[in-house]
C-alpha cells in the first residue's frame, strides 16, 4: 500500500478516509486535523494560555505533544488520584514527558488535598467513576480559573464523542446532549473547555503516539473494568467497519444539524449557581461537592 501524498510505502492505513500515509505524511495529516478543529470551533489562539488535562494515556499525552509542536503556550495538569499501582505509573510517564519536552506541569496530589480516591470510596461507598469524574472536573476548572488560563483542553477523541453521543441518543438524555460538542463555553467561574482531538480516532491517536515515541500508560484504571461506555465504542467500531466514515458523519451531522436546535436550550436550562463559601467554586448546594467530600472524609477518618 502506498502513501497518498508522496507515493512511499504507507504505514498508517485510514479505512474511513479510503487512504493511507507514510510516517511523515501521517504527521502532516494529524496536525492538520487538530488545526482544523481549533480553527473551525475557534478554540484558542496562539497568545492564549492553554491548560491540558493529562492522565498519562495516549490521548492526553498526544494532545500535549501536538499542541507543543504547533507552538502553543501549553501547561499540563495532572490530578494524582492515588490509586495503587496506577496513579504512580501515570505520574512517572507524565513527569518524564514534561522533562523531555521541557513543558510546564502542574500536579494536584489528592493525598495532600485529603481526598485520595481509594479512601473516598472506602469511607463513602461512592462509585469510583462518578466520584473520580467529579473531583477531576473540580480541579481542572479550579486550577484553570485560579491560575488564569484561557481554556482547558482535554484529549477526548472521535471514539469518545461518538460513543457518548450514541449512549445519550439511545436514552434521549437531552440534558447531556445539550452540552455535547467540541467546545463548552465558559460560565460563571467555569473556564471554556475544548477537545482539539475530536476529529481523530483512537487508532489515529495510538498510531501518532507510537510513531512519535510517546511513552504512555496503556493499562486501564483498575476501577474502570466493565465500564459501559466501552461497549458503545465497540458497537460504533463495528458500524465503522461495515460502513467506513460512519463515526465522523454521525458526529459532524449532530454538530451541523442537531446542535443548532440544542444551543438555545443550553441558556434556558443552565441552573443558577452561587459560589462555594469555602473555595469559591460555583455550586447549587450551600457548599460545593468537593468541599463537602473533604469534610465528610475528615469526619469519617477522625
Amino acid at each position, binding site marked *: *500500500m502506498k502513501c497518498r501524498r508522496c507515493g512511499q510505502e*504507507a*504505514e*498508517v*492505513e*485510514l*479505512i*474511513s478516509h479510503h487512504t*493511507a500515509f507514510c510516517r511523515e505524511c501521517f504527521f502532516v495529516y494529524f496536525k492538520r486535523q487538530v488545526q482544523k478543529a481549533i480553527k473551525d470551533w475557534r478554540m484558542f489562539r496562539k497568545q492564549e494560555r492553554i491548560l491540558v488535562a493529562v*492522565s498519562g*494515556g*495516549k*490521548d492526553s499525552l498526544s494532545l500535549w505533544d501536538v499542541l507543543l509542536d504547533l507552538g502553543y503556550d501549553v501547561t499540563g495538569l495532572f490530578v494524582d488520584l492515588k490509586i495503587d499501582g496506577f496513579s504512580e505509573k501515570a505520574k512517572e510517564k507524565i513527569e518524564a514527558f514534561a522533562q523531555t519536552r521541557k513543558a510546564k506541569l502542574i500536579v494536584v496530589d489528592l493525598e495532600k488535598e485529603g481526598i485520595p480516591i481509594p479512601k473516598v470510596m472506602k469511607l463513602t461507598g461512592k462509585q469510583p*467513576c462518578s466520584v473520580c469524574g467529579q473531583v477531576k472536573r473540580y480541579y481542572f476548572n479550579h486550577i484553570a480559573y485560579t491560575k488564569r488560563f484561557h481554556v482547558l483542553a482535554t484529549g477526548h*477523541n472521535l*471514539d*469518545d464523542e461518538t460513543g457518548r453521543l450514541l449512549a445519550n441518543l439511545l436514552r434521549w438524555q437531552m440534558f447531556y446532549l445539550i452540552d455535547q460538542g467540541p467546545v463548552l463555553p465558559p460560565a460563571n467561574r467555569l473556564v471554556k473547555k475544548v477537545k482539539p482531538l475530536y476529529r481523530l*480516532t*483512537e*487508532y489515529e*491517536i*495510538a*498510531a501518532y503516539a*507510537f*510513531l512519535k515515541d510517546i511513552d504512555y*500508560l*496503556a*493499562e*486501564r*484504571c483498575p476501577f*474502570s473494568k466493565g*465500564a459501559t*461506555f*466501552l461497549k458503545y*465504542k*465497540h458497537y460504533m*467500531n*463495528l458500524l*465503522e*467497519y461495515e460502513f467506513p466514515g460512519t463515526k465522523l458523519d454521525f458526529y459532524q451531522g449532530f454538530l451541523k444539524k442537531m446542535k443548532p436546535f440544542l444551543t438555545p436550550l443550553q441558556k434556558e436550562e443552565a441552573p443558577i449557581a452561587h459560589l462555594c463559601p469555602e473555595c469559591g467554586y460555583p455550586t447549587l448546594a450551600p457548599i460545593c461537592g468537593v468541599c463537602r467530600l473533604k469534610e465528610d472524609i475528615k469526619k469519617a477518618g477522625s
Partner: protein
Amino acid sequence: MIRIKFFPQGKEMTIEKTLTVKQLLKKLNLVPQTALVIREGKILTSDKVLKDGDEVEIRVVGSRG
C-alpha cells in the same frame, strides 16, 4: 513460525501459517482499526504479509477509561 506479542499485557502466542495483517486480525477476533500491528518498529497496513520468523506486536487502541 510467527510470534505475536500483545501490548501492554505481555501475553504471547505463535502462528504457523503465513497470513496477511487483515487475516491475522480476523483470526484474533479484532475489528480492523482497533489495534495497531507493529513489526520492527513500523506499523503495518492490512495488506502486509506476515512470514515465518516475524515478530509482531499487537496494541489494542481502546482508551483506558
